[in-house]
């Protein structure tokens, strides 16, 4: 088998969760950037949030252009920062309100990616699940690859162990990926509006209506995403300030202890 396990750094995991929890109405997706070691373990160091190329709720497919530009980004920007060659090693997408297992389309899509890279892995985050009886909410995540079934030409899923590896601080690349989300959402909205705006046969009232829809959608994005994002960033600052003070104290204490030994 090409992949023995996947180690997902916790800050990359954080960005995936942020992205998956950003909307319950459609599936979101992104690419995983990292490296594969000699033990065939895939290490995912960061993720890139992607725009949905197919607005259908139940399908996620990455266009060749997206894949190529992500690969370029992985090569230059990310490798530059970490000092090691990084590449696209997998993809992730979300399953809001649905089971975490990949659909037949997902398994086929994964098989396609595996044709160009045997070690390509797929991650799925299932969220917004609630058990009404016990009022329990659930978030699940799984990792899989595809193999050809014995009979016929259908593909089947195989399970790959995945572990979230502790990463004490949030990496620069992950932070930058996280703040890309509002920009991507705004870009999508602008593109849709531009197409509508170019329709010349609309009367002024309809144009005002459409403009208001754009305004409304942008407001929704700002309050649901940008605002929450800012709040979280500020909380990080606050928590870090405290941690740094505590770490400084501990460092002094340990230095003293070492000196007395």
């Amino acid at each position: 088998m090409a992949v023995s396990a996947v180690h997902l750094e916790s800050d990359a995991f954080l960005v995936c969760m942020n992205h998956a929890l950003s909307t319950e109405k459609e599936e979101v997706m992104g690419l995983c950037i990292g490296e594969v070691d000699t033990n065939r373990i895939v290490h995912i160091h960061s993720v890139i949030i992607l725009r949905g190329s197919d607005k259908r709720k139940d399908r996620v497919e990455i266009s060749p252009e997206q894949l190529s530009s992500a690969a370029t980004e992985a090569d230059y920007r990310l490798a530059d920062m970490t000092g090691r060659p990084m590449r696209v090693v997998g993809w992730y997408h979300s399953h809001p309100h649905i089971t975490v297992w990949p659909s037949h389309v997902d398994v086929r899509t994964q098989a396609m990616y595996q044709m160009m890279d045997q070690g390509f892995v797929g991650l799925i985050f299932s969220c917004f699940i609630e058990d009404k009886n016990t009022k329990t909410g659930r978030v699940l995540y799984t990792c899989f690859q595809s193999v050809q079934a014995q009979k016929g030409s259908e593909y089947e899923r195989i399970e790959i162990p995945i572990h979230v590896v502790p990463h004490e601080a949030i990496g620069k690349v992950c932070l930058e990926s996280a703040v890309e989300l509002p920009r991507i959402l705004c870009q999508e909205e602008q593109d849709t509006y531009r197409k509508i705006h170019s329709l010349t046969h609309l009367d002024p009232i309809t144009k005002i209506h459409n403009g208001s829809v754009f305004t409304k959608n942008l407001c929704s994005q700002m309050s649901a995403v940008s605002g929450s994002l800012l709040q979280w960033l500020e909380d990080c600052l606050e928590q870090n300030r405290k941690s740094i003070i505590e770490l400084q104290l501990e460092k002094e204490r340990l230095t003293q202890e070492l000196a007395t030994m």
Partner: protein
Amino acid sequence: MAASISGYTFSSVCYHSANSNSDHEGFLLGEVRQEETVSISDTQISSAELLQVVEVHNHEPCAQLFSFYDYAGKVNDENLNRILKDRHKNVIGWYRFRRNTQQQMSFREQIIHKQLTQLLGVPDLVFLLFSFISTANNSTHALEYVLFRPNRSRYNQRVTLHIPNLGTTSQQEYKVSSVPNTSLNYAKVIKEHGAEFFDKDGVMKDIRTIFQVYGALQDRVQAVCGEVEQNERVKEKFQEEVNKLKQQIALRKQKSAEEERRLQEAQNPEQRPTPEENSEPLETSLLSRVVFHTPSTPERLGPSANPPSYADLLSLQDDSLLPSLSSPTSAALLPRPQAVGSPGHPSPSPLGLNPSPAPSPSMPYLGNGDGSSSDSLDRQAAGQEDDDEEEEEDDDDDSSEYENLVSEVAQLPPVTASVLAQGRPAALSPDGDASVLGSQTS
């Protein structure tokens, strides 16, 4: 009662929990509002219902367990204030993350909750419980969360936790065609007065304005992000220095322990080591390891260290327990559940799970993820939470290695065994047995 938490706060709790190799806990900050809903029914003109809305704005993670309470569950007011400082008044609840345990408040959590309710002066303090569970081959993991209102009556204690999100920003709301209308009056009026909305380029003024707001917001997000990034690097550097110092101290302790042992052996060269004597230095080093590791920040691999390979893992567990216990630094090489996974190939699992690929889920306890009740599933994990380093079971496929650990422990003097037995992670096996593993202090 309704409750909500932002997706970013939720992810942040998951992130801090993933970084800790034991239970994780912290406080929930936010506000509680009363919302009035007026309804009209046939019997009453208007009935106002008061709905309490709990909004979690952010969380305050505790760096380690037992930071504001002791082993008896007594809350220390001083420590509590030190952790919360001026955010005291914003506390609306607290949370706990544990692995492989039942979704019920433990006894200690209940008594802590009562004390917190009094000390913080929040009559309806809430408790958010996160429990983490995985399949035997570690390919699928579930994080379950329940919000409790323990200060209410025995019934209705659970509250649905809502995560607000983008939801319905539907782009289907754009109109691609106008309602057909040939009225000249209509066309004239809307053209004349509608022109107010557009600037000379034919772009709606509102759009330009809202775009400016968005631009300013995004710029601010970038700026704060830059600050956070710098902060994280500073924190990382301090963490590395602290880790290095701890390693140095551990090395010194190890060296002095070895020197002591050599001195003792040099003084008594005639005596053959008996089992009791042999275990003496073991006991001290074991105890010192235990003391070293609890309850301070758990030792962890530095960011540059790679998790041990699967080959290393298996060879470590094959060796006898004794050598690996004598040096605290080799403790870093013992398997850490998050960092190490089981081999990818389906292994003969004694737990009876079907590892072969199948479109239908092979985990009995997750059902089909569409909200079906988990009560029907066999979750007989013992409700014991382990407040020391509770670890996910690793290498589930070969539970016999854990039996070896237990038998090794049994040979040691009773004092040591009881120290180790303080925390016993409960193992979840889908076939219903709650097998108790020998505690593995790493």
